[in-house]
């Protein structure tokens, strides 16, 4: 058990170190976040000027911008796991990986988490600088940050499962790129990246809340700006259900895909 944790933990650590080699590229890509935040700041300023009590979706303008910092940082930190799996299947690299005493899924999960932590940290630093410059700080507490730190990794794991499933589609499709595009846009639109879920029509909100996308993006964003035990409980229940459902789906699809591999080759 301990050696397994060390093994997968070290994969994550190596992935994080490898990603640090891209510091310049990651910083450059993250700088785009500053542009996005500035544009949204201008847009929301106009929208907030029309609001009666200075609140939209229960958030003030500074809170809205900090919410965007988190959701954008989460979305933009996603590694292209689907492309890795797609390449593994398409080029036969999968066979090489299976020669190692590792779980294919856990190996990719560790790698994804390592990469994502570095990217998210850089995005968060840049986003925070921009938000501090544009709207200043918002009220935060250690307790709130701790609750955020619980919800965030689960959001990453959920997104990993989603991307991994998209990648596994390469066993049946010519390319997983099409599904990846739909998946990424779904996370963007239905996850509450640009707009909090409360802004969507009332009839749509319950549907969006039970979809896993909100648990990946909106949940950490809300937890950062408006942390509460009730929200933590609600988020963890939704995330827990989504993790169990996704894990079941991933193991079923992978079982079918690998049975195909074991019987018909890569």
């Amino acid at each position: 058990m301990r050696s397994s944790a060390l093994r997968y933990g070290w994969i994550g650590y190596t992935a994080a170190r490898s990603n640090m080699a891209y510091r310049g590229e990651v910083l450059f890509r993250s700088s785009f976040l500053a542009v996005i935040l500035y544009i949204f700041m201008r847009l929301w300023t106009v929208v907030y000027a029309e609001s009666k009590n200075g609140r939209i979706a229960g958030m003030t303008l500074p809170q809205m911008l900090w919410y965007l910092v988190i959701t954008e940082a989460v979305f933009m930190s996603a590694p292209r796991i689907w492309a890795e799996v797609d390449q593994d299947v398409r080029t036969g690299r999968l066979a090489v990986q299976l020669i190692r005493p590792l779980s294919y899924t856990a190996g990719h999960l560790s790698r994804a988490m390592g990469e994502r932590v570095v990217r998210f940290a850089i995005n968060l630093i840049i986003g925070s600088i921009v938000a501090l410059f544009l709207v200043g700080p918002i009220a935060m507490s250690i307790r709130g940050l701790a609750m955020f730190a619980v919800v965030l990794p689960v959001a990453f794991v959920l997104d990993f499962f989603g991307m991994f499933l998209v990648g596994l589609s390469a066993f049946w499709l010519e390319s997983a790129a099409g599904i990846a595009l739909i998946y990424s846009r779904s996370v963007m639109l239905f996850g509450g990246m640009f707009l909090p879920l409360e802004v969507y029509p009332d009839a749509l909100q319950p549907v969006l809340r039970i979809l896993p996308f909100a648990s990946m993006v909106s949940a950490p964003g809300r937890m950062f700006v408006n942390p509460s035990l009730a929200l933590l409980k609600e988020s963890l229940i939704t995330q827990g259900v989504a993790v169990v459902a996704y894990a079941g789906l991933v193991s079923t699809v992978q079982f079918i895909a690998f049975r195909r591999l074991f019987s018909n080759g890569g």
Partner: protein
Amino acid sequence: MNRGVEIRALTKNFVLTRWSGFRRSVSEIVAVDGINLDVPAGQSVALIGPNGAGKSTTIKMLTGILHPTSGEASVLGFIPWRDRRKLAYSVGAVFGLRSQLWYHLPPGDTFELLARIYNLRRPDFIQTRDLLIDRFNLGPFMQTPVRKLSLGQRMRAEVVASLLHRPKILFLDEPTIGLDVIARQELRDLIREWNHNDGTTVFLTSHDAGDIEHVAERVIVVNHGHVVVDGAVDAVRRKYLGSKILRVQFHGTPARIAMAGVTSLSHSEYEWKMQVDTTITPVGQVTAAVLDAGSVADIAIEDPPLEEVIARIYSGDRREESS
């Protein structure tokens, strides 16, 4: 006792499904057709054959990635497709076209990761790593990111990465592809040395006859899923070519020799290189004639290059197929 590889009637059929409109047709391709093999521990074997012969399928079954349609295989006492994870601790692999090193990190980082993946005891890992770094002369590049290494340096690092856990079997798939002559020769020497010193069983698949000649002691030629030829590299060369290369240097200009089965390959005033078809004229008879032809300064009798042997085996196989 380190057990090797035993294969009995190993067969693999691939099912091919084709759709024509709404009609589905299923056909079966026999990739490996009842192969029987015994490879003792510590032997270095070249598994060769034309593309689509069944080499990779055999290797994939031996590493547990593919499940056979029928037959049995035992690798180091494990049934590969049932005990894949356990077997993985005793197997190393180098794929010339697929890197296992982290591209943006120095090789040492991959080595550290592999130590964790294979759950190596720290003192054992350090001892093996240092030994390999020294032997494969990787010391000067240990802090250089893999992306900045030359192909030769990278391939040496790849082999080191696959030997860190001291595997009992090493699978090498085109390990020298793309390397220059010197880097290729260096790598072959190192692999052969490790095979001799550490007793690692080596399974080599390569289209480069030089790899086979320098690394393997036994060659297994596979075609259409069957073992076509199996024997010691020298014996195969002798059996399948029936010819010798005779290289002679004279003190003066020799008299011409005209004998059945003797073909001149190159000819200068003092040197003569000829191919002797030993099935027509024994090489001893030709040598005697050469000694009569002039004052001999030096004489060498060589086996023909393995490329020629392989080409002849493949073409013979095709002829059998068409007849």
